[in-house]
């Protein structure tokens, strides 16, 4: 369980994370979503005690990360940028990590096997491809068999097979009752992985809800109506209190489903040439949501003033 309260980080006049409060619960995959520069990585660094919050706090299993006597056994993390020495072999990298937290050496072979790197374990990691580096990062995260797993952009650089593997792994970890937080700037990826969504933009919370609620609330849908008597149809629908937009000879109707709209028009004797439910994709919903946060950023002077 990860709990953030009023978490804030400023760098000079720039606010990277702006009063974020959220809870990441166990047993489900929580997607941490936002465009680049939204403050995802900064938030994750604060969870891991790498960066010190300017104000607010974040706890893991009830205490700050730094207070954990054996943090690798409590929280496993894949950091966004590679955090390893290119001259060291994969096995040696896991060896020192295991040693630092009193994890038995047998566990090293287990995680190497788990991520499929056993054949290249003795190779220096400088020669690893991006995908192999990500797999090693996941091995590091799972080394201590932690109940909380934090993955920052885990699918970066992975091939389609690797992406699917990470997706299944995240779901599996959550299925075992672990707390899983996965960051991404790709809504399409989250749609397939996450049960719960935390969406941030410009360091601010934009949404914190289940994936289903997110779809209902933000992925707007409308019914497209075409009729030879488009003006009459428009007047009728408006007369019934529906929300109607007109684009040339097309009507976009919100507030009722297609069947109801069809019956309304048919009842008035109006021919209908097209009647279709149009559901915007999650990607569009995400774009719309974060577009607002980009608009917000076009007044940087205000932001700067608020921080000082």
């Amino acid at each position, binding site marked *: 369980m990860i709990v953030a309260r009023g978490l804030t980080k400023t760098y000079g006049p720039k606010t990277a994370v702006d009063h974020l409060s959220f809870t990441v619960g166990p047993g489900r995959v929580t997607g941490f979503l936002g465009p680049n520069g939204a403050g995802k990585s900064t938030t994750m*660094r604060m969870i891991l005690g790498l960066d010190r919050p300017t104000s607010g706090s974040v706890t893991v299993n009830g205490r700050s990360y730094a207070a954990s006597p054996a943090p690798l056994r409590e929280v496993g993390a894949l950091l966004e940028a590679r955090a390893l020495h290119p001259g060291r072999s994969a096995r040696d990298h896991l*060896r020192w990590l295991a*040693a630092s937290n009193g994890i*038995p050496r*047998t566990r090293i072979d287990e*995680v190497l096997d*788990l991520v499929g790197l056993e054949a290249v374990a003795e190779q220096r990691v400088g020669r690893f491809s991006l995908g192999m580096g990500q797999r090693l990062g996941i091995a590091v995260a799972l080394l201590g068999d932690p109940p909380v797993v934090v993955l920052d952009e885990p699918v970066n650089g992975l091939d389609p097979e690797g992406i699917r593997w990470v997706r299944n792994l995240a779901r599996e970890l959550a*299925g075992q009752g672990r707390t899983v937080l996965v960051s991404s700037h790709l809504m399409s990826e989250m749609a397939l992985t996450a049960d719960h969504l935390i969406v941030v933009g410009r360091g601010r919370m934009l949404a914190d809800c289940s994936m289903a609620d997110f779809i209902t609330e933000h992925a707007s849908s409308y019914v497209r109506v075409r009729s030879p008597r488009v003006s009459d149809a428009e007047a009728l629908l408006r007369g019934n209190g529906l929300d109607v937009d007109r684009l040339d000879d097309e009507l976009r109707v919100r507030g009722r489903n297609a069947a109801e709209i069809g019956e309304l028009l048919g009842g008035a004797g109006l021919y209908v040439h097209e009647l279709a439910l149009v559901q915007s994709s999650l990607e569009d919903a995400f774009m719309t949501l974060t577009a607002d946060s980009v608009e917000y950023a076009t007044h940087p002077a205000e932001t700067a003033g608020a921080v000082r």
Partner: protein
Amino acid sequence: MSATPTMSTAPARPGSGSSSAADVVRLDPNRHVPGVRQPGFAQVLHAEWVKFWTVRSTRWSLGLLFALGAGLTTLVCWAAATDLAAGDTGEAPAAFLTWGLLFSQLTALALGTLVVTSEYGTGMMRATVTAVPRRGRVVAAKVVVLTVVLFVAGVVTAVAGYLGGNWFLDREGVGLALSDDGVLRALLGNGLYLAGLGVFALATGLLIRHTAAALTVGMALVLVVGNVAYALPGTWGEWVAKLLPGNAGGAVAQVAPFNGGAVLAPWTGFGVFVAEVAALLLVAVLVFRRRDA
């Protein structure tokens, strides 16, 4: 040990499909991987020891330290033995027995710097402080590993240099016995001085965080500034020169100083050096603990 299932049994191999519902278990937040112990300083020390020996730069630096320290001492003693015996150099033969230190100290500086800056350069530092959030412990472990290794390397190098160099001096009848004044002290002093210098470089690295910049600052302070300071006028200039870390700490590692450079008495100088290194390390640790990693 706990009986709760661990990840090891999970069929999460790449390419294999999703898990069955049977894998769903409740996790005890206090459970452990079988066989783990509560980590303490010994574990951090072990981790730093593994890190230290699993990069190539360590072997390179230590190899170079030995080659420069012992090799150059021997070479210079061979070349200068005749002149020394004739008294043409105006220097005591004893001063030449640790001649290689002038260069081997560079490798100690490099090693000390890299122990920290290579972690910043590669992003490793983030992994280090996530594994061990108590940053004071990280520095303490690095210091222990570095001082032990540099002390041993320094003494071994100095002894080899003494044996090689003194062989040539002996042939000309100006050799020194181990029991002669200052010889044993200098051999041990080599280890002490190089260990101290390594910690000095480590602290510089923690403060500066960039390999090239930290190396330049360390070498400039110990070598360039240390020598240039002797050109300062008056008594205060002499004191400044004497108190600079390289000059203060170097005295303990030399059987006898070369002429022209006033130095503190060996153990007094080493005391000053240790105090300087400790002060710098303290500042570095305080900054390191506060700073974002």
